[in-house]
């Protein structure tokens, strides 16, 4: 199996899904997969901590893109999990030997082709295994520029990592992929659903309101947590936004790319405008990242620095509230 086409992607889940669909004859761009998969979101949950740091997410839950793409195109995902690592590897061998590339869920910590400084215990990484050579697997990791190989024991460890979101060997591939589906209803449905989730959530921690809600809490961090912990928490938000495979600005740019493509597809001027406005909002998010990083680097522990960050966040929240309200009725 060497005819698998690798493409560099911004986000692992949309990249993996796009690659698997393309292999079966449905060639969609990564932003299209991300958008129809309803990937964009925002939430901040102070009670749900990972390593003592509250969960902040710029996207929907892991595997949401897989689920939504299936729903909107009538694709059936065959999904397998395994109790025993050895049988999980045997099953993987059968798939790739029969010429079927599969998506697998892994931990980035045990993948040796990742740079050491990027290896954290994060169990929600998706990649494609498309073949094997001797004891090495041929891998198309959407985050990478090119294909890579990975030794069997390393891949096994990554697939059977323990802890939060333990992958338990999850292996998946699509069945019944339509060749030339009409994208328009799927795009409309997806935009409406994402816009609703962004502005109509009845609780304040989610969607565009959640951004302002986080801003209010962030302002109080230096007095509540102390300087060091507050800096750590700010750093973690910026990391979630810029570092963890988001395509830039916490998925805002990739979603703007989707809106642009959707605007052309539906010949809809509002969508094109919203794409431009979301790009501008993404630039404000980037400014937030710059200011947040500066706060970390220069140890600006005064309340003024936090107020500045909160002001930027509120601006992002208000802009997104406005954009997604428009999007709700645009299609």
């Amino acid at each position, binding site marked *: 199996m060497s005819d698998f086409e690798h493409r560099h992607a911004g986000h692992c889940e949309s990249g993996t899904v796009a690659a698997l669909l393309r292999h079966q004859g449905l060639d969609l761009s990564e932003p299209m997969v991300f958008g129809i998969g309803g990937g964009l979101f925002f939430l901040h949950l102070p009670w749900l901590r990972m390593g003592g740091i509250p969960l902040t997410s710029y996207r929907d839950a892991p595997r949401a893109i897989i689920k939504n793409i299936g729903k909107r195109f009538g694709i059936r995902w065959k999904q397998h999990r395994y109790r025993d690592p050895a049988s999980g590897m045997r099953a993987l061998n059968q798939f790739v030997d029969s010429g079927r590339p599969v998506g697998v869920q892994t931990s980035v910590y045990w993948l040796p082709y990742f740079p050491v400084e990027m290896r954290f215990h994060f169990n929600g990484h998706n990649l494609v295994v498309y073949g094997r050579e001797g004891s090495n697997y041929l891998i198309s990791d959407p*985050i*990478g520029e090119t294909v890579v190989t990975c030794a069997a024991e390393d891949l096994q460890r990554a697939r059977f990592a323990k802890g939060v979101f333990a992958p338990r060997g999850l292996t998946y591939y699509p069945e019944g992929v339509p060749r030339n589906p009409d994208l328009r209803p799927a795009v409309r449905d997806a935009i409406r659903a994402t816009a609703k989730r962004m502005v109509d959530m009845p609780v304040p921690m989610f969607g565009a309101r959640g951004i302002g809600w986080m801003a209010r809490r962030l302002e109080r961090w230096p007095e509540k947590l102390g300087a060091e912990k507050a800096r750590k928490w700010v*750093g973690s938000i910026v990391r979630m936004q810029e570092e963890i495979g988001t395509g830039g600005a916490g998925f805002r740019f990739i979603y703007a790319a989707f809106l642009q493509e959707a605007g052309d597809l539906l010949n809809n001027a509002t969508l094109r405008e919203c794409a431009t406005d979301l790009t501008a909002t993404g630039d404000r998010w980037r400014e937030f990242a710059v200011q947040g990083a500066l706060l970390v680097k220069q140890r600006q522990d005064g309340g003024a620095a936090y107020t500045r960050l909160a002001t930027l966040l509120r601006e992002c929240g208000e802009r997104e509230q406005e954009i997604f309200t428009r999007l709700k009725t645009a299609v």
Partner: protein
Amino acid sequence: MLGGHQRACYAVDEHGRYVVVGSLGWEAENIVNGQANDEVRAEIATALGCARRGEVSALAYHMARRQMDSGMLAAYAEISRLRVWWHLRPQVFRRLPDKVLQRYAEALQLPLAELRTLPAENDCERL
């Protein structure tokens, strides 16, 4: 920070169209990633110091080196959290049979002999 690797980012070209561009990482990203890595190193250094002073067993150092907490180590070694917590005591850890140590060695991907020892240098690098 990305070790020379590029990550794909979405950006607008001169015609206002979105394109994928390779990014070697930008400053804000490097700063916060550096902060997270410093954090890991600080935790390893703390664990190493405590282990040298005999406050905790060598297991605590090796656990920190793999960026694990006791809950995660318990899951990887398939040993109950309570027992892991117990094994973090130096007196207890010293008397552990090889059978138990072997499970920790596999969970942490270390040779069994190394598991009992601390590094000669103040090595705070992970992996």
